[in-house]
């Protein structure tokens, strides 16, 4: 993937000296990160390194104790604080896809998708249904609209989860290990959807172990270990020439084929 020119793009996420503790355990240390619009960032690292915690802080599923997180939408800068209004505004613009899909099991697929547009954006049902169906077509499972999540395979459920997040037309998409819970043969179908999304210009932060995806799609790969950002670089540099010893060790463990 050619290196794109992102120099003119506005910064949409700005993390400045962000620190987080779980009790006494220092889980995020001095995180400084700027994400530009349309940028695709892949975050990798050993388990316990804080990568999931990092992206969960961005939509306030976790709270940070020090530093600031600012999300810019349409030129407006919103800082993440305890203020409920700010949090709601940010969550409208940031979509999240979870490792365990978290579809609502008591609703049909269509209702899963239209729930938020109807109740948060106050859309008429027909409009919401149309948007939902078009998204289901985009993730290639429109025929499942009236089924329940329990009747779908893992790969299908995750694609529905992506469609559900997209229904709110977010500016930024967060992915928390989206393919880790899937059987190997279903990983490709989900990655394909993510690649299409990337090609359409979505700003994406993806926590994953799928290095093939990182190589082909990412603008930047970040390696985290023990709560710190250890190294970040465009994928070509990152994989060919890791500068840090820890990065090298990690890559050798996961790239042995």
């Amino acid at each position, binding site marked *: 993937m050619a290196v794109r020119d992102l120099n003119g793009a506005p910064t949409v996420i700005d993390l400045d000296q962000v620190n987080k503790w779980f009790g006494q355990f220092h889980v995020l240390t001095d995180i400084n990160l700027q994400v530009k619009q349309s940028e695709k960032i892949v975050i990798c690292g050993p388990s316990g390194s804080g990568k999931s915690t990092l992206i969960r802080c961005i939509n306030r*599923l976790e709270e940070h104790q020090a530093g600031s997180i600012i999300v810019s939408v349409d030129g407006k800068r919103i800082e993440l604080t305890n203020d409920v209004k700010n949090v709601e505004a940010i*969550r409208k613009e940031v979509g999240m896809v979870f490792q*365990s899909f978290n579809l609502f099991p008591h609703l049909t697929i269509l209702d899963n998708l239209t729930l938020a547009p109807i*109740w*948060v954006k106050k859309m*008429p049902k*027909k409009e919401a249904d149309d948007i939902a169906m078009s998204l289901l077509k985009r993730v290639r499972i429109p025929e499942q609209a009236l089924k*329940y999540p329990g*009747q779908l395979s893992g790969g299908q459920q995750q694609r529905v989860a992506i469609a559900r997040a997209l229904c709110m037309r977010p500016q930024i998409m967060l992915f928390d290990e989206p393919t880790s819970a899937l059987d190997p043969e279903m990983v490709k179908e989900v990655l394909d959807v993510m690649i299409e999304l990337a090609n359409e210009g979505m700003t994406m932060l993806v926590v994953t172990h799928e290095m093939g995806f990182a190589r082909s799609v990412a603008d930047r790969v970040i390696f985290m270990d023990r709560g710190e950002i250890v190294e970040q670089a465009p994928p070509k540099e990152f994989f060919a020439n890791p500068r840090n010893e820890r990065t090298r060790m990690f890559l050798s463990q996961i790239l042995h084929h």
Partner: protein
Amino acid sequence: MAIAHAGPAKARVAPWNDPFIRGWFFQIVVIGAVTLLAWYLVSNTLENLERQKIATGFDYLNREAGFEIGDTIIPYSPADTYARAILVGVINTLRIAVIGILLATILGTLIGVGRLSPNWLLAKLCEWYVELFRNVPLLLWLFLIYKVISEAFPGPRQAISVLWDTIFLSNRGLYFPVPFAHDVHGWMGVGLLAGIVAAWVIGRWAKARQARTGQPFPSIRAGAGAIIGLPLLIWLFGGAPLDFSVPALKGFNFEGGTVIQPEFTALLVGLVLYTSAFVAEIVRSGILALHKGQSEAAYSVGLSRGQAMRLVLLPQALRVIVPPMTSQYLNITKNSSLAIAIGYPDLVASINVTINQTGQAVENVLIIMAAYLSVSLSISLFMNWYNRRIAMKER
């Protein structure tokens, strides 16, 4: 030469090894043993009844009962039949059960949610409440509450009076004013029904409107307004009659108004407090059973706390809550039979007196069992229907 085969030859099995025959043989033996036992018991019973000159059959139901019942909402006097006495008992049981179920559900839900509160003190307080009431027998609570009411509360002459001498609290019960029957009350009843229908219609119209335009409508508040407002309007139109029958002390007791007796109060309070502890645990485990990811997904898609609770969490929690909850409802109904220990005239109490007076234990016990069984079977049927209906579809 063609050999005609009629199909695979059937293996020949000795009858005592054939599982089908063995199964039926075993069943016949068991049924036989049970029947033998039943016949033995029945013949003994008939013999004993004959010997002690106790009548059989249900004719006694038409005889005069001859005993007083202290707390009844339908008219009853000792000259009425046993059948009517038993009916009063059934009504009293249902009174306690229905009100108890309602109050226990409300209180239990509040305490169950309180246990999950982020406020540590509130959560601990609710936890102590639950542990306290679950680990002490219900009968003990009933005695405690009843004795406290009857011995700690003053007699009628020193009754505590509230609201300018219209409400009196004494060890004879809580006396409060009640309106005299008036024509307008009938119309108010009609108004209430109309209000309920209107609330339902408003709900459906609001839902359709939201589907069309996306705008939500406060249908709950509107519906509540209709249910309360319509009867109120009718009352105003009817001249707003305010004639109340007010209790007043005459001699040793009160006359007028209506009363909630200490037995009823003690039984209701005891049942509600005790059962709410169990309901609280059921509600809490229902909410805890929810996968954490569900609330996270709901919030990350932009739903507010209230919306997430209403649209995503509560529907899923109810699936886990309803089965044990109905079992608690059944328990309230059965536990109301403890009324006999504190003198509230429920079904078991009526039957007990009837057994003592007529000696016909068998028939009366059958009546008790039939009454409670019909309640529990209907609840079981409801449970099965509900479970089938909400079972989440899986592949």
